[in-house]
């Protein structure tokens, strides 16, 4: 009861009294929590729907039989003959493009006997406006919708399996066989028998395994997003620290009185931690609602990225579970309480007599600049040390820790940095007319601890913006240079429809011949790509005409001579692998890869490692002749066309469009493909920028909050300069100069920290997460523009506090002390 009364008087009342500051603090926590929640929810929704939704049509499935390059249809006869009580169902799963409508997953199943009918999911029906008995056209054939399966949140169409094989030209080949064990039968025994029946190169796994595999593939991507989302929370933590520190300074006399009338040091600690907890709970609760909204916006962006570079999935619904809400509130509140710990401890150590003395009401902060510099040095050394280690379980955990150490180092340097810069700026500041510069510089230096915290919070946000900016720009530049060397053909062909990671729709067998016979066409490089599994992870196996690749020197290798590497491929079980594949699976030149292809397991020697930025999954590439040896029927999926010297590429393209009109292929000129690749790249990082933007907004709110606190705490000083003849403009200029100084200091510190973090991001975190080599290309103009913009916003954050300062009544301000 006593505690409740104390809480009401000393926690709730001050929060209510300072409504605006409370609101700003709550909003910064809310935004911090919202971003974390939103990234998690949107990530779940964007990646959570890999599992095929066919269970409602075919019932529960216990096992799946799959094989790289497809399952031989004849296997199913062997399985059906097994003396077990289980059902074996052949399935084709492909993506199909609908005219002007988008794409859906197409299943070929045995349950539908009529080759002219289709069953569709409710999601597809809703999306495309289909109803029972409507006709739909799939790859030039018409099907009648027989049934709509309700309750489906993924778009799919199911047709008879034979019709599907006919549509895709995959006669004799299945994508998987689904095994359903009858109740009462020993599932493990069935699995053993199935394994013994299918070729050793085949995989028998539970359906959930595929989904887990996909999730595993995305873990680095999601981890990086998650870490990025913590930035706002980290910035928020600095601001909570600041809010509570200000509260302690302001209520020093109150603390003295409380201590004098018998409240224990622990009681005082509880009051301030209670204040932080209250802000944390309210902020987190608001953050959940805000996060839910934000997630809806982010899900599309994350889903785009997942589809472009990782794996095809359809976004699911965004749903906040009670558990995730509870975790969010616990996280937000813990961050708030933890951030408030130091100032709250300081408050609890205040001696009553000292607190009540008038002079000690000035902001006295115990600063240990030299000790802090030593800690900063140690943190910086720790950051460098941690960056030397490799990933843990595929995640750059130590790299993230190094980032945290670097931020801690910057936070510790901050007071020394702030006072040194203000000392340096003394002369130019004094030149600002009307003493605004003089007073602004001095008052910031006088409240060094508080200024340092605001500067650190803003600098953290700025440094993340800078480091991610440098990383993305460097990456973009690297990709563009790579695109120039990689994409040398004049025209590129693939099956029509939206390209998606891991999906390689086949091109009809006769297309390469048609192209080759077109006037003006020189080399025709056919590429056969398909997804395969290696060490439990998905990657792409591809086969091209290595002779053409060599002649046009489109590949750049990490080491070795491209020409001799490519010459060594034809007629040999030799492959080249992409850099991400090499990093992910620790594969070096000369290593032997054992890859299951069809019914056999082949042993390929790695001849070279080449630069590739098109997919995080990784490529293994052989000569087309080598692939044919193992998978003779593997279809062509992509074609690169080199126009003969002197021929008109435009004319050739028009001719190809005409000749291939009936083959559902898209023909893209070189420039279009390059542009599309850069667009995918930019879309991929859109979510990154969105998160960065929010961190900056949180920091801005903090700056406004802190400037407001500085103004309110210096009421007497502002009142006094009014007595001494300062006009409205001079008071406003003084506060705005402080805002500008805070912005300048934060930009300086943020720039240094950001440069260090960009090196960490490019050479440690990115390499360990995705395995790409990125050349360092800082976008100087962009960074200068962004810094200027943040600086202007910081000054704008001072407008409201400046207005408050202007309206202060000097007589009251001077005499209330």
């Amino acid at each position, binding site marked *: 009861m006593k505690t409740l009364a104390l809480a009401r008087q000393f926690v709730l009342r001050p929060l209510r009294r300072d409504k605006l500051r409370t609101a700003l603090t709550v909003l910064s926590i809310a935004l911090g929590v919202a971003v974390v929640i939103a990234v998690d929810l949107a990530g779940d929704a964007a990646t959570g729907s890999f599992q095929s939704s066919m269970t409602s049509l075919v019932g529960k499935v216990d096992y799946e039989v799959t094989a790289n390059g497809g399952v031989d249809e004849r296997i199913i006869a062997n399985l059906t003959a097994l003396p077990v009580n289980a059902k074996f169902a052949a399935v084709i799963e492909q993506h199909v493009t609908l005219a002007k409508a988008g794409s859906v997953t197409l299943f070929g199943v045995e349950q539908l006997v009529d080759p002219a009918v289709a069953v569709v999911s409710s999601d597809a029906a809703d999306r495309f406006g289909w109803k029972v008995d409507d006709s739909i056209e799939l790859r030039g054939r018409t099907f009648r919708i027989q049934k709509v399966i309700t309750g489906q949140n993924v778009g799919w169409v199911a047709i008879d399996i034979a019709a599907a094989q006919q549509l895709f030209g995959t006669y004799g080949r299945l994508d998987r066989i689904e095994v359903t064990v009858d109740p009462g039968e020993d599932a493990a025994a069935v699995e053993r028998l199935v394994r013994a029946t299918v070729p050793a190169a085949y995989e028998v796994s539970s359906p959930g395994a595929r989904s887990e595999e996909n999730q595993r593939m995305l873990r680095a991507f999601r981890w990086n997003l998650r870490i990025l989302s913590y930035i706002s929370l980290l910035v928020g933590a600095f601001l909570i620290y600041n809010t509570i520190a200000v509260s302690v300074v302001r209520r020093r006399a109150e603390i003295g009185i409380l201590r004098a009338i018998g409240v224990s040091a622990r009681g005082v600690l509880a009051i301030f931690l209670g204040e932080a907890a209250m802000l944390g709970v309210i902020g987190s609760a608001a953050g959940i609602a805000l996060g839910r909204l934000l997630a809806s916006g982010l899900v599309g962006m994350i889903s785009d990225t997942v589809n472009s570079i990782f794996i095809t999935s359809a976004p699911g619904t965004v749903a906040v579970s009670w558990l995730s809400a509870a975790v969010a509130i616990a996280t937000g509140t813990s961050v708030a309480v933890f951030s408030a710990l130091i100032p709250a401890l300081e408050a609890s150590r205040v001696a009553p007599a000292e607190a009540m003395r008038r002079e000690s009401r000035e902001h006295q902060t115990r600063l240990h600049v030299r000790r802090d510099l030593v800690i900063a040095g140690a943190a910086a050394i720790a950051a460098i040390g941690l960056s030397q280690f490799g990933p843990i379980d595929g995640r750059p955990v130590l790299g993230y820790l190094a980032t945290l150490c670097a931020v801690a180092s910057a936070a510790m340097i901050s007071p020394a940095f702030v006072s040194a810069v203000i000392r340096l700026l003394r002369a130019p500041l004094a030149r600002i007319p*009307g003493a605004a510069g003089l007073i602004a510089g001095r008052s910031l230096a006088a409240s060094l601890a508080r200024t340092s915290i605001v500067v650190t919070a803003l600098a953290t946000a700025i440094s993340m913006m800078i480091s991610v900016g440098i990383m993305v720009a460097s990456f973009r530049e690297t990709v563009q240079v790579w695109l120039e060397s990689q994409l040398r053909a004049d025209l590129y062909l693939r099956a029509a429809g939206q390209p998606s990671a891991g999906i390689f729709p086949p091109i009809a067998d006769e297309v390469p011949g048609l192209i080759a016979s077109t006037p003006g066409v020189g080399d025709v490089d056919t590429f056969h790509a398909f997804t395969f599994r290696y060490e439990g992870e998905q990657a792409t196996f591809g086969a091209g005409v290595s002779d053409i690749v060599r002649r046009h020197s489109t590949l750049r290798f990490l080491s070795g001579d491209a020409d001799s590497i490519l010459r060594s491929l034809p007629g040999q079980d030799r492959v080249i692998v992409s850099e991400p594949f090499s990093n992910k699976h620790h594969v070096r030149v000369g290593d032997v890869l054992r890859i299951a292809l069809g019914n056999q397991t082949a042993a390929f020697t790695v001849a070279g490692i080449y630069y590739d930025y098109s997919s995080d999954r990784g490529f293994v590439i052989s000569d087309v002749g080598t692939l044919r040896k193992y998978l003779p029927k593997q279809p062509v999926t992509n074609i690169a066309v080199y126009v003969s010297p002197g021929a008109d590429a435009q004319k050739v393209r028009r001719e190809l469009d005409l000749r291939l009109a009936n083959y559902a292929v898209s023909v893209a000129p070189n420039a279009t493909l390059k542009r599309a690749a850069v667009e995918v790249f930019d879309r991929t990082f859109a979510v990154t920028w969105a998160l960065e933007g929010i961190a900056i907004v949180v920091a801005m709110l903090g700056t406004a909050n802190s400037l407001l606190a500085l103004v309110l705490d210096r009421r007497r000083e502002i009142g*006094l300069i009014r007595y*001494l*003849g300062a006009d*409205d403009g*001079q008071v406003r200029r003084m506060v705005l100069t402080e805002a500008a100084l805070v912005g300048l200091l934060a930009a300086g510190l943020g720039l240094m920290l950001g440069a260090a973090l960009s090196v960490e991001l490019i050479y440690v975190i990115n390499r360990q997460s995705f395995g790409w080599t990125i050349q360092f290309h800082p976008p100087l103009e962009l960074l200068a523009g962004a810094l200027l913009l943040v600086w202007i916003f910081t000054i704008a954050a001072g407008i409201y506090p400046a207005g408050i300062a202007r309206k202060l009544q000097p*007589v009251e301000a001077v005499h209330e*002390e």
Partner: protein
Amino acid sequence: MFDNKNLSGVVGVTKSGLSAVSIRDVRKTYEGGVEALRGVSLELPAGRITALVGRSGCGKTTLLNMCGAMDFPTSGVVEVAGLVTTGLGDAALTGLRRNKIGFVFQFFQLLPTLTALENIELPLLLAGARNVRATARERLDWVGLPEKADALPWQLSGGQMQRIAIARALVHNPAILVADEPTGNLDTASGDLVLKLIRRAADEFGAAVVMATHSAEAAAIADTRVRMRDGLIESVE
């Protein structure tokens, strides 16, 4: 030396001739109905010290603030340096304070982050004056603390702080010096030093000094002692 443009075009030139401040039948009622002044008239001549004495709450501070153009009457007229304060806008009032008025407070009110010299310079900087440093040094010498130019307020004694505050109040040669309990927070020796400076301010600068005080020693240096009670002038000696 000072920019008087803010004062130009303002109506209400004083009829009182030599008085720097003229207060005529002034009443002040605060929100909530508290009557601080109930019909007060007073002239503050240049070069003279007027001490306002009386118990706390008798209206001294309100009257002092009116003399400094920091507070305004509910009725009656306050003329400061020939200008009726109620008729002035914010810019003109700021100009008046910048150029014609100096303030000394009981608790010194030095900016803790500025050195002694910088505190003295402040009114000149705010007014956009020239020769700021030299003028401020002159005043610092005048109060007898030339060696304290670079000292921060916390490095000074109470008496020294108040002397710096007096130097700051006089740095722009004000016509009126408003002092609120200038010795209220000082020991006797320091208080005497400060009072001597205030006397010199009136004699050497010709400032009209108005000082609210509880101290007999302070009242003793005044040329006129105005005793107040319940918002009225009880006696003038």
